[in-house]
Structures are given as C-alpha cells and as structure tokens.
C-alpha cells in the first residue's frame, strides 16, 4: 500500500512531455546487485520492477560507500544538505547548524539548487544526507496519513531517509485501515511515539507563525482558521463570512502564486483551492479543523469499507441546473475511469458507487479495503462535477484519455462562488452565489496575482488589496512591523500547525548509528532558527513529530526533542567510540568496536526492528 504524492506524478508527466519536445532520452542502467534488505517485504521499494533506486547509478554511487564498513581511522564523511534556492530561511538556519557542527568535528556541505532540481533529487533520493522540508497546510493534510505515512513509512518513496522501522510501519498500516477515528488516533499517536523515540526526523522548529494583515477599515469579521489563518483559499471562511464596512463589497486578495489555469483537474494547488470554491467539496472543516458537512449533508458508515453519502438537497449549479445524485455518481465514475494518479489521489481506493436512494439523494461508496481516510481525505478532496457539462467533454475536445488536457474556460460548479472574469497570471474574479447554502456575505472576491512579497506588501499598504492569500505567504514579524503604522490595516496571528524538519539518511552511515543520531540531534540550535531566522515567530518543537501541538492528531505524551548541547553531543560520541582526527574531524569508531557494529546493523533503537537496507559485507 502506498500513497503517492501527486506532485511527483505531475513532474513525471512534465518530464515526459519535456522529453518529447525537449528531447531527453532514457538511459538504461545495469542493475546493481549487492544491496540487501533486512525484511524482504521492503525489497519492493528497491528492487521491484518499475522502481529504480538500485538501477540508478547516482543512488548506488552514493549509497554503496555509505553501506560499507568504515576502515580504521576513517573520518565521518562530509554531510550533504540540499536546499532549494527559494528557501532562503532554510539556508540561513543551516549556516548556523553547520557552524555549530564543526565544533563536533562534522563538516556539512550545504548545496542550494533550483526548486526543480531539489524536487527531483529528493524524489530520486539523490539529495545527499539530509532532506529539509516544511509543512504547507491544506485541508486534506489534516489527515495524519499525509505526513506520517509519506515521510516515515518504510515503503513510501517520500520517506527520504529510507528509515524502515517495522513497529512504526505496523502502526501506520493499522491506522490507514481503521475507519473509526478514535481508534485511528491511538495508532497514529503510537506511531508518533516510535518515530520520536527512534530519533529519525529532527523537527527544527514549529512555525513559522501565521501572521497576516488585513484591511480592517473595510472588513469586519474575518475568520481565523487554525493553522490556515484568515486569508487562505483553502480555508475560505473569511470569504464567506466577512462583513463589508464600506460600500465596497468586493474583497481584493493579493496572491503570490500565479493563476495558471482554470481547469480544476489540471490545476496546481492554488488554483485547485480556488476550484474548490467554485465546485463544492463533499465535506469541509470549520475554523477549528472539525470536519463539517458541505455538499454532502451527512454520511453513514455501513462497514469499514462502505459509506452512504447523502447529498444536500436544493443545490443548483451556477448555470441553474439542479445538482442531483447523478452528478455525484458521475463525478466518482469520471475519477475512477480516468484516475491516473496524476491528479486526485483521493479516489485510488474507491471500488464502486451505486445509487441507494435517488429520491433522497443517497449514494453508496464502496472501497477496495478498510479505509481510514474517508472523512478527512476522501470527502475533503472530492467535488461535484456537473454531469451535463462533463459527460462528453473528453470526446468533444478530443483529448483522448487525459483529463488534464481538458480545457474549461469558464468553470461551472455548485460552490459558493461563481467564476467571473479571468485574466491569466493577473486576476480572477469570483462572484458570490447568494443562493448557496453557505450564504456568502461578500459580493465578490478578486484574486490579484502579485509575484513578489514586496509587491504584495506595497499593494496592501496602498489599499489595492484587502489581504494576502495565505496558503504559502505569511508575513514575518519585521514585515508585520512595517505595516503596523499603516492606517486601516490590522495584523492578526493565527495559531499555526507548521513545522520545518530535517530528515537524515537513516539507512546510511553515519546515521545508521543510533548514538550518532542522538548526538546529532543535540547539535541543532533550534532556538537560532526560531529567534533569528523566524524572527521569534515560531515555537520550540515539543517533540519530533509532524503533528504539532494544536493539531487534532497530536500525541501530547512524546519524548521531548534533545536540547541543543554540544558538550553532551561530544560526550555521546566519545562514549560511542568516536574519536577526533588531528584536524578536528570526527572519526568513526574502530572497525572492531562491537558496540558500533551492532548499532549500525540494528539501526533502530533497542526494542525496534530494522527492515531496511543492510550493510554490505
């Protein structure tokens, strides 16, 4: 079982397309034998036909030496950290971490690459020792599987450190099939405990804070959605409930990312969020992240793989056509038929749908296996497509089997906002559908593309925009400070659920040594990240978990993160048999150090079972 990140799939298609017109060709690699996996179950990730790690010369070239026992006196190699160029703050933090690590005899090689190349490298696990990642919140990402599975499950490719802890994986496998939320929470909390205990990922900071500014002279009653803030199209409560104070009933929203397409199928994340304001989601979340009914009035669990969905009565599409259960079923059928993993991944476990009660609008959905993500993922991601428009759209436009190629110039949905005017990369007008059940109080929402933070702040200051779309753009305290004097603007901070973490390559040396990991965790000056880089807008991580305090899935009883203490780190390393060379560099314990050999073989802390790559020889 795996969950795919659709961004990876998207890039695959992009690369394929670029190959066609840009001419890349596919080199053939000779399979490299010599790699072994402790538990054959995990073999599939490395050896299965269609996977490629062991066939990739870059990956094998990197991994092989790191799975070879170090010689006597061998220094711990340079630790490579790869950071995308756009993430200036990550680099700022890593410069400090690297400086501190030299005091332990560690050398970092911090590489900055374009975001494109970074995505590629982490996807191929050729990014080096440490992968750095931050959370960007979306409604479906409240579901614990988004992070717990993708970043640490032994069979997921987005587990960039290739950490394979069988006890952790057991919890993950259990939670995803558990459709009863309280029971699922138990599994998720136990998984978090294992993760934190085995010292795999290092949470560097919880944050940065969600700080926003809005035009309070013109608007009242903005809604602060936990983790999202007031201005996120993903959490559209502000756009539904804010009250205009002036005659202007249009809300102008500056948006950093460009508006690239109006097709909800082909869109990237920002436009997809807008798409879900036009098409109705089946369920949504309130400002406290509690799941609430949306286009589906209610749902009933029949068994652990079957649910009955009841459509909200009285809804109409923006062209006046009533929304029927046929439309809902058509949407699922459409997704089932064309699901290629390159758009919505929510439907990959759906087996079939049948209309249970047409008069009352009840549809039965059946899944291939017990499904724990029904409410928090499946209902959040799916929308209702108007059957009368979409029925033959693929054939009419002659796009073959590829729904991402469908052009929808003027989307018609049943959501709270009608699609108005659109100028690509410039502006998009959303007109409130006053007949919608959510009863939007604004008249219009305009998304105004402004590609730089400076431009956004300038427009906020000049009153051109009322707030900034906050899915990926928050203010720093110093930016907020610049705006505090501006009349009419109010700064608000919303409790955040964000984090920034580092993932070491646990399957490789030196990270295979639990004691080394422990020492490394002590070498990270998290306070620097929070106080200096984030300008104080962040929290010290309570534990090494993805589900920060405030997240509904948080486990409050986790071991704390190892504090920044270089002396302690040094002591741990010394205790574990590490020595220091004349130039100060850290040297591996001697090859006959039995403790070292056993730790490296086991990788996991005592009490857990390692299922991943084994040392060579």
């Amino acid at each position, binding site marked *: 079982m795996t969950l795919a990140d659709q961004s990876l799939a998207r890039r695959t298609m992009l690369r394929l397309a670029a190959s066609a017109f840009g001419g890349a060709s596919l080199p053939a690699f000779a399979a490299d034998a010599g790699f072994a996996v402790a538990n054959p179950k995990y073999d599939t990730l490395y050896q299965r036909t269609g996977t490629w790690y062991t066939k990739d010369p870059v990956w094998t070239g990197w991994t092989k030496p790191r799975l070879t026992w170090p010689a006597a006196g061998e220094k711990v190699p340079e630790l490579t950290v790869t950071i995308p160029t756009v993430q200036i703050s990550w680099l700022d933090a890593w410069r400090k971490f690297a400086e501190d690590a030299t005091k332990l005899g560690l050398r970092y090689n911090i590489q*900055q690459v*374009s975001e494109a190349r970074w995505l590629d490298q982490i996807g191929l696990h050729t990014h080096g020792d440490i992968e750095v990642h931050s959370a960007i919140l979306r409604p479906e990402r409240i579901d614990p599987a988004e992070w717990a599975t993708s970043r640490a499950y032994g069979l997921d490719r987005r587990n960039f450190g290739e950490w394979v802890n069988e006890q952790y994986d057991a919890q993950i496998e259990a939670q995803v099939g558990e459709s009863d939320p309280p029971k699922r929470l138990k599994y998720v909390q136990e998984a978090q405990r294992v993760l934190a205990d085995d010292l795999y990922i290092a949470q560097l900071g919880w944050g940065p804070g969600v700080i926003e500014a809005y035009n309070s002279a013109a608007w009242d009653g903005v809604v602060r959605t936990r983790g999202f803030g007031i201005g996120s199209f993903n959490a559209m409560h502000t756009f539904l409930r804010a009250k205009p104070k002036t005659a202007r009933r249009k809300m102008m929203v500056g948006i950093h990312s460009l508006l690239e397409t109006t097709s909800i199928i082909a869109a990237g994340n920002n436009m997809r969020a807008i798409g879900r304001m036009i098409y109705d989601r089946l369920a949504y979340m309130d400002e406290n992240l509690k799941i609430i009914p949306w286009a589906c009035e209610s749902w009933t669990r029949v068994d652990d793989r079957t649910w009955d969905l009841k459509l909200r009565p009285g809804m109409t599409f923006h062209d006046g056509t009533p929304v029927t259960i046929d439309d809902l079923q058509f949407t699922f059928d459409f997704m089932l038929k064309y699901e290629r993993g390159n758009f919505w991944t929510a439907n990959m476990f759906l087996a079939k749908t049948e209309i249970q009660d047409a008069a009352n609008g009840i549809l039965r959905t059946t899944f291939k296996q017990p499904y724990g993500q029904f409410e928090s993922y499946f209902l959040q991601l799916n929308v209702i497509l108007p059957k009368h428009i979409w029925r033959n759209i693929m054939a009419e436009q002659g796009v073959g089997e590829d729904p991402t190629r469908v052009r929808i110039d003027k989307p018609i949905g049943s959501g709270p906002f009608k699609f108005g005017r659109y100028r690509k990369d410039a502006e998009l007008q959303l007109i409130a559908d006053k007949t919608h059940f959510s009863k939007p109080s604004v008249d219009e929402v305009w998304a105004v593309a402004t590609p730089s933070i*400076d431009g956004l702040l300038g427009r906020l200051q000049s009153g051109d925009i009322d707030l900034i779309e906050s899915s990926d753009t928050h203010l720093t305290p110093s930016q907020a400070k610049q705006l505090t004097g501006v009349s009419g603007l109010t700064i608000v901070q919303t409790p955040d659920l964000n984090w920034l973490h580092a993932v070491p390559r646990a399957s490789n040396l030196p990270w295979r040594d639990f004691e080394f990991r422990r020492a490394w965790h002590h070498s990270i000056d998290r306070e620097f990240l929070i106080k200096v880089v984030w300008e104080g807008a962040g929290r010290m991580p309570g534990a090494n978990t993805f589900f920060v305090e405030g997240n509904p899935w948080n486990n409050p009883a986790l071991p704390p993160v190892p504090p920044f203490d270089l002396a302690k780190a040094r002591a741990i390393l010394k205790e574990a048999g590490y020595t220091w060379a004349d130039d100060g560099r850290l040297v591996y314990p001697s090859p006959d150090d039995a403790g070292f050999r056993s730790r490296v073989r086991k990788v996991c802390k005592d009490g857990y079972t390692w299922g991943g790559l084994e040392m060579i020889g």
Partner: protein
Amino acid sequence: MRGFRVILDYPSGTAGAIVVVVFSLLAVFGPAIAPHGPFEVVYNTDHSVLRLSPPVANALFGTTNQGMDVFSQLLWGTRSALLVGLLSAVGSVVLGTAVGLASGYFGGWTDEVLMRLTDVAFGIPFLPFAMVVISLSKPSLGLVILLVVVFLWRIPARVIRAQVLSLRSRPFIWAARAAGASHARILARHIAPNVLPLSFLYAAIGVQTGVMLEAALSFLGFGDPNAMSWGAMLNAAFQAGAMRSAWWWVLPPGVALSLFVTAIFMITRAYEELLNPRLRAI
C-alpha cells in the same frame, strides 16, 4: 602605461579610475576590515537580534531582517562582484581575442566557421539562457563566470577580427611574410601588439558587464547562495519585502553597483578616445 596617462587626462577618466581603485582595495581588504562575516548575525547587548535596524554605531549601514550587518555584506559583496567581473572579463577577452586573431588572420574556412559561431553566440539571449542553464544545474560563482564568458567573448571576437583584417593587408605584414616569418611569429610580433589595446578595452567592458550580469542573475535568485554579492543583497531585500522601508539595505548595494559600473564606463570611454583619436574631438 601610456594608456593610463591618457585616461587620467580626462577628468571623468580620473574619477572612474579612482572609484575602481577604491573598489579594488575594498575587494582585497574589505573582508579583513569588515566587522562581521557576510552571514553573521549582529546581537544587541541584551542578546536580542539587531534586526532591520537603520544605521547605528555597531552596524554602520544598518542590518537586514536577519540581523546581518549590511556594511559587512557590502564589503564581502564587493569581493565577489569584482571577482566575477575580473575573471569573466579575462576569460571572455582571452577567448574573444583568440577567436578574433585566428579568424581574421587565417581567413577562409577558419574565419567562416568561427564567425558563424560568433553569429550563433550573438543570437543567444543571455539572461534567459543563463537562467535555464543554472536552473538545470547548480548555481555557483564559477558557473556564473562561465556563462558570462560564453556570453561576452563574441564582441571582442568580432571587433578584433576586423582589426586583424585591416592589419593583415598592411605592408609590414607582407614584408614579414616575405621574409619567411612563421604565422606564429607574425601573430605574436606584428599583429598581437596592435590588437592588445583593443583587448584591454574589451576587458574593461567585460568587467563592467560581468559585474552587472552577476548582479542581475543574483537578483533573480540564480546566484551563488554561498557567496555574498551586491545582487544577492538586493535579492534578499526584495525577497524579504523590505524594499519599501529598509532603504539602508537597498541603497548600498544598488549605489555600489551603479557607481562601479559608471566608473568603468568612464574609463572605457576615455580609453576609447585614446584608441580612436577621431573620437577625441568629440
């Protein structure tokens, strides 16, 4: 050296020369006199970060949003800027001169091939091309220099070819050839000395263009992340959204860049007048 004296005959040339000398000194000694490292955070006495501060005593030009000292960054940035400028100038002029000499002197197919190559180079839009290359690989100062060289060599190549062509028909070349001098000797003894002043001119122009292009690339975020440069400073200010308020962060790199580029421009104009007396009346 005669060239330098002529440059100094022009007030603008003198001013330019002084500015360039000052910047060169800063590039060499700047990091040594910089009170902080390029990425070092400046703290207040109470150990809070001196963040986004206008110029004060312990941060002469103020600080960035990360509490880094703008003055120190400027000094470190001068070094990278001049390094890129100098190396790309040398690279492009050596390459351009070699191509120009070979093309102009040997003529025929050599000329045809090299000049078509130059035409191709002239067809490449630099910034877009450089952005593509950098985003496909890894940003570094070396790559920026390489790209600037690839972009710049074409101009000296064409100009020097034209110069060589006119030299080639002069009697002393015929005489030398009739006397049995080898190609290498003729090139080295008779042609190169006449072409070198032009090469110097294009080296100066190369420094200017190199500095400018590095700044532009860095500003767009395609610069070397580990090197502090003027463009990178502007980029950081732009990314931080500090343009509207933190004038102390924006002005130093911008003014330094403009000043340096103007200075070189003044020198090249004075030098051009030396090379081309017809312009002297102008």
